[in-house]
């Protein structure tokens, strides 16, 4: 369980806007273990996808600094030729939108076969055999028929299954899924998530699941990292995170979900928005501006991750004083007159 496949150390990914570089991922450190599903949550603009793309090195123009240790080597700024030996083989990626992730002019069989060819399966027969096996594995009915179909002939759920088949074609040790079900219907969503989980259990791969849906996290994750404004603000195992969330951002997110199981007439609203990259506060608590009712003195000058219990890290000290605006610290509702 505790055998790390991926170890990220102080990763910074900066994008150039006009003449300056602005870090969208700002000092992220985390590990992914074998047979572990790490979920990364946050609102849009928090740097979740930027982080995933940095691991795969898919950004075309970004400055990436820090360490990403994968299979005993630092893969940050590795030459493309070496990277290409890893990508698609030892690390696979499932993209958000299956329609844009697939080539519309190529039949399914060739698309999946291509990734096998690149990584050394030269015999066409073997490739076809493997593709059919993969299609079967991801639950596509009538693989022989689908083999010769084009992406537009498949439904959204089926396309996403094809994308998953491509990602797992070479039995990767690390699988990155970037919002794999956002474009899909609920029933399909649960099928795809169950599939990802099944594949993980079977292969023992480490999985990074990026999502903004906390319900998905509760169903899927072993550990959860909550990101805000390019930083990890809280990281813990899934039970701790849902039962004892500490960081104000985590608590606010959890409280804003209209749960289908609980009665709650008004939802919690997080004031303000995630600031744009250029306007990110680089000093002090980045979430401070969105919880203005918490005194400035509660925040750290230079917020660090604190280990509050084994494996449970929280950034900044403001969690100690945090309460929702309509409640006191013990969680009792104020009587609004």
């Amino acid at each position, binding site marked *: 369980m505790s055998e790390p496949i991926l170890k990220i150390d102080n990763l910074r990914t900066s994008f150039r806007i006009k003449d300056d570089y602005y870090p969208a991922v700002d000092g992220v450190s985390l590990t992914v273990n074998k047979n572990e599903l790490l979920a990364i949550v946050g609102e849009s603009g928090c740097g979740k996808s930027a982080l995933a793309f940095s691991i795969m090195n898919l950004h075309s123009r970004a400055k990436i600094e820090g360490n990403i240790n994968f299979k005993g080597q630092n893969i940050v700024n590795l030459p493309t030729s070496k990277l290409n030996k890893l990508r698609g083989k030892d690390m696979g990626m499932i993209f958000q939108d299956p329609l844009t992730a697939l080539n519309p002019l190529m039949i399914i069989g060739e698309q999946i076969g291509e990734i096998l060819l690149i990584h050394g399966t030269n015999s066409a027969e073997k490739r076809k055999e493997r593709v059919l096996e993969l299609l079967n594995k991801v639950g596509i009915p009538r693989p022989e028929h689908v083999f010769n179909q084009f992406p537009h002939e498949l439904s959204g759920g089926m396309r996403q299954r094809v994308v998953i088949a491509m990602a797992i074609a070479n039995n990767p040790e690390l699988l990155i899924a970037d919002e794999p079900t956002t474009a899909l219907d609920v029933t399909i969503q649960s099928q795809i998530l169950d599939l990802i989980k099944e594949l993980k259990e079977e292969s023992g791969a480490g999985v990074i699941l990026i999502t903004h849906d906390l319900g998905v996290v509760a169903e899927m994750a072993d550990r959860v990292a909550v990101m805000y404004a390019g930083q990890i603000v809280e990281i813990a195992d899934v039970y701790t995170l849902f039962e004892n969330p500490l960081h104000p951002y985590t608590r606010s997110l959890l409280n804003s979900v209209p749960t*289908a199981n609980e009665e709650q007439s008004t939802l919690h609203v997080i004031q303000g928005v995630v600031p744009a990259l250029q306007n990110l506060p680089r000093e002090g608590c980045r979430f401070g501006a969105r919880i203005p009712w918490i005194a400035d003195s509660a925040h750290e000058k230079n917020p660090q991750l604190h280990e509050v219990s084994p494996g449970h890290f929280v950034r900044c000290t403001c969690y100690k004083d945090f309460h929702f605006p309509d409640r006191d610290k013990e969680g009792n509702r104020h009587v609004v007159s």
Partner: protein
Amino acid sequence: MSYLEVKDLKVHFPVKGGLFGRTLAHIKAVDGVNFSIEKGKTYGLVGESGSGKTTTGRAIIGLNKITSGQVFFEGQDITNLNKANKDIRRDIQMIFQDPYSSLNPKKRVIDIISEPLRNYEKLTKGEETKRVQELLELVGLNPESILKYPHEFSGGQRQRIGIARAIALKPKLIIADEPVSALDVSVQAQVLNFMKEIQKELGLTYLFISHDLGVIKHMCDQIGIMYKGRYVESGTKEDIFNHPQHIYTKRLVAAIPDMNPRNRQQHLQFRQEVKNEYEQAYNQYFDDEGLAFQLQPVSDTHLVALPEKG
């Protein structure tokens, strides 16, 4: 008499093709839908993509031509109204799904929100500005921002502009087509809270279209579940979430992620059971074409599409 009543609504789209563009077949997007909404309530229309829920909403407001069936609003037949007597339409407004594509990027906020006002009310420039500012204040935006363009706002703020436009004429019924699907949870919370608030304040009736059962449960009093253009089940929130009868509804309810990670195994098992039941019992719940049967009452409020006994 219900506030809004939809009777046997059908919307069929022709499929054209061949040498002279003849109509070859019809796609039955909505195929015999009946429901009614009480005044001041929120009615939820649920279904997967392609189930016809959006088409139903658009047909009521007249954006899709109704093939057959009738729509009554406050007792008046508003089916396929022509331009001459479209005044009733000012009482029904729509909130669209995507706040990024439903606002004209070349127009300022004042022009966007005052468009319905210009269509239906003769106001002077000053009155118009005043009304728009009031509306912006009502939806929680800065009244000073009337001269801004849509791109200067965030997603949640844009959706509020869409809402301000929808309530500009003080409508009685609002059709909200996936109003929060494109938004983050925190922003979604903001919009949902706000929709509830103005419902109370202005006495609005909502037809709330969504695929997200969590949101539907939070917002709606009555719910209808659609599948391939037909109803499979309808009832109160209680009926649908606690006593789903149709196998399709059961499957939808089972697919809602559970927010407690401790229930995970149990929930997965439940989901699998429902899936197996769905596959085995599919033929009992759907006819030869894979369509739902006619609705049969199982209680006063609860209707389920079951085959006729016998």
